[in-house]
């Protein structure tokens, strides 16, 4: 069996591990446009801070590919897939034949429809190259705007602030992490960011990146041009002078980071007949609509267990689960994924924020319970839907939140003990005896479901 994997991040690595659980022999070729061995994307903010060195960025040990018997083609983009002849055509003209193909191309930052985005000095915060470049401009007392107060933007702002950069965090949303937190939780994060010296401009849209008119422009959002863009910035062929906001005010900045969400890198699948919606549509086995082609990770649009619809869940844990299942199935195994649950855990300037499922949603079909003491950095929000746990957010103390995550997946009736869910001491002993007796996740969802 010949396997080709496009991508080299979580879902791709998980797929390698999945394939090898079933098939120790088959030839695996992994191709990726980034030139680095697999690294942990969330570590880029730690790299920027200087807390993690380049050699410690690895998502897997350096001998991973050799040990797993994987041929790697790094630094080469897969240009297109020819599904009829089962070939992947690389940018350099090479062709790779496959029996099973996994598309795990991930996502890229959303290119904001804002003038000046193409200016050197406007950075993204997604790849190692982004922070390698940023590390050279981020210096104490310089000024930066971070556009987008989601998880990525917040981590970028924190890292820059730790380096000594004066950071202003800009977002149209009324508070940071608005995608996962409710206003009360977001307010805590705002306070924490401000304590760390970050200026927040919330509820404020960006109008323009203002710069030196002499600056040569690069086409926006095109990956191949990012390096060139960063290069020009670094050699000083630009001056980003500031950003202009919709309320008419301006911020003087030396550089900016755009972290306004991500879009799936579906291009490689275009023209193959693979069904694409927002991401590449996959079933519970991670199969696309074309036989032999699988997709997993940020590029895939799979079943969302909580929202009960197909949706891109761009989180690392979800990428691993999907990638592994894809790998096992590509190698002839038979695993079905019950569905993803969006789950995040992040440390914002020392404040732990964890969320899963419908962590900030409201609605007539939802019952929301909150507890905590926000001034003392404690908050817990529980969302119930039809007596089932549909989501949670824990701020300050995230201890044992995994039991809540599993309760979401277990879809058990939590009404008999629903108030206990708000207690930081909530544990397995609080589960009704029959549920506790079958609380077995040692073989993942399968062992839970089988009991």
């Amino acid at each position, binding site marked *: 069996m010949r396997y080709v994997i496009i991508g080299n991040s979580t879902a791709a690595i*998980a797929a390698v591990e999945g394939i090898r659980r079933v098939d120790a022999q088959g030839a695996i070729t992994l191709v990726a446009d980034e030139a680095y061995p697999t690294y*942990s*994307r*969330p*570590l880029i903010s*730690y790299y920027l801070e200087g*807390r*993690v060195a380049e050699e*410690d960025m*690895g*998502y*897997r040990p350096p001998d991973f590919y050799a040990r797993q018997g994987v041929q790697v083609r790094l630094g080469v983009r897969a240009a297109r897939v020819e599904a009829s002849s089962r070939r992947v055509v690389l940018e350099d003209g090479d062709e790779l034949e496959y029996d099973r193909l996994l598309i795990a191309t991930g996502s890229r930052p959303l290119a904001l429809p804002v003038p000046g985005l193409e200016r050197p000095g406007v950075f993204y915060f997604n790849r190692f190259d982004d922070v390698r470049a940023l590390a050279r401009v981020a210096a104490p007392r310089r000024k930066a705007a971070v556009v987008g107060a989601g998880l990525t933007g917040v981590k970028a702002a924190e890292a820059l602030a730790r380096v000594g950069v004066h950071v202003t965090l800009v977002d149209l949303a009324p508070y940071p992490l608005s995608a996962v937190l409710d206003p009360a939780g977001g307010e805590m994060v705002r306070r924490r960011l401000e304590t760390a010296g970050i200026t927040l401009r919330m509820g404020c849209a960006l109008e323009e990146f203002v710069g030196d008119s002499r600056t040569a422009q690069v086409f926006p959002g095109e990956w191949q041009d990012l390096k060139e863009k960063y290069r020009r910035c670094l050699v000083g062929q630009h001056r980003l002078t500031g950003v202009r906001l919709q309320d008419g005010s301006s911020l003087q900045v030396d550089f900016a980071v755009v972290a306004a969400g991500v879009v799936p890198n579906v291009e490689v699948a275009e023209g193959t007949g693979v069904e694409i919606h927002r991401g590449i549509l996959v079933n519970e086995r991670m199969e696309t609509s074309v036989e032999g082609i699988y997709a997993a990770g940020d590029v895939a649009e799979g079943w969302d267990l909580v929202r009960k619809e197909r949706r891109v869940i761009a989180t*690392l*844990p979800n990428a*691993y*689960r999907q990638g*592994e299942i894809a790998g096992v199935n590509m190698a002839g195994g038979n695993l079905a994924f019950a569905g993803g649950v969006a*789950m*995040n*855990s*992040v*440390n914002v300037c020392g404040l*732990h924020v*964890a969320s*899963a499922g419908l962590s900030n949603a409201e609605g007539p079909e939802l019952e929301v319970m909150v507890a905590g003491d926000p001034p003392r950095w404690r908050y817990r929000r529980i969302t119930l839907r039809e007596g089932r746990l549909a989501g949670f957010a*824990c701020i300050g103390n*995230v*201890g*044992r*939140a*995994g*039991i809540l*995550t*599993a309760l979401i*997946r277990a879809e058990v009736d939590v009404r008999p003990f629903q108030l206990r869910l708000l207690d930081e001491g909530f*544990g*397995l*002993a*609080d589960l009704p005896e029959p549920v506790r007796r079958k*609380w077995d*996740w*040692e*073989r*993942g969802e*399968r*062992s*839970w479901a089988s009991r």
Partner: protein
Amino acid sequence: MSSKRVVWNEEACIGCRLCQVHCVTAHSRFPGDVLKAFKLDPQRPVPRLVVEETGPLSFALSCRQCEEPECVKSCLTGALGIDRQTGTVKVEEARCIGCWTCVVACPYGAIRAGAGDHPVASKCDLCGETRSVPACVEFCPNEALRVEERGV
């Protein structure tokens, strides 16, 4: 390959939490001395097992050493993994950034946020390198804990 883990007998667990005291000690700078571990170790670790109690029910829960560990699959950095030799789930502490994604992933709540200047994920390591029998098992006054070996 077989793997080991600590299992509890809830008929015998009396909720005294001596397991936690000895777990802390075993992972401190003074593995053989409770007093020194608690009095002299400025970076005293947190216990790697949780004692749960409601009414007469109590049990000391530690890592189940899952065959399909959610924590490993969720780990952002690859710091968590299954040890090839022992089959147990282990944390490579130097690579852990303390994001607690594993804490939010573990269905048992068996991973705890560590203590100290550089807090890392703290979970049962079966006292692997230091003792032949995990400290919690050895010192459980009511023999409520034991090591179970499981074929994989």
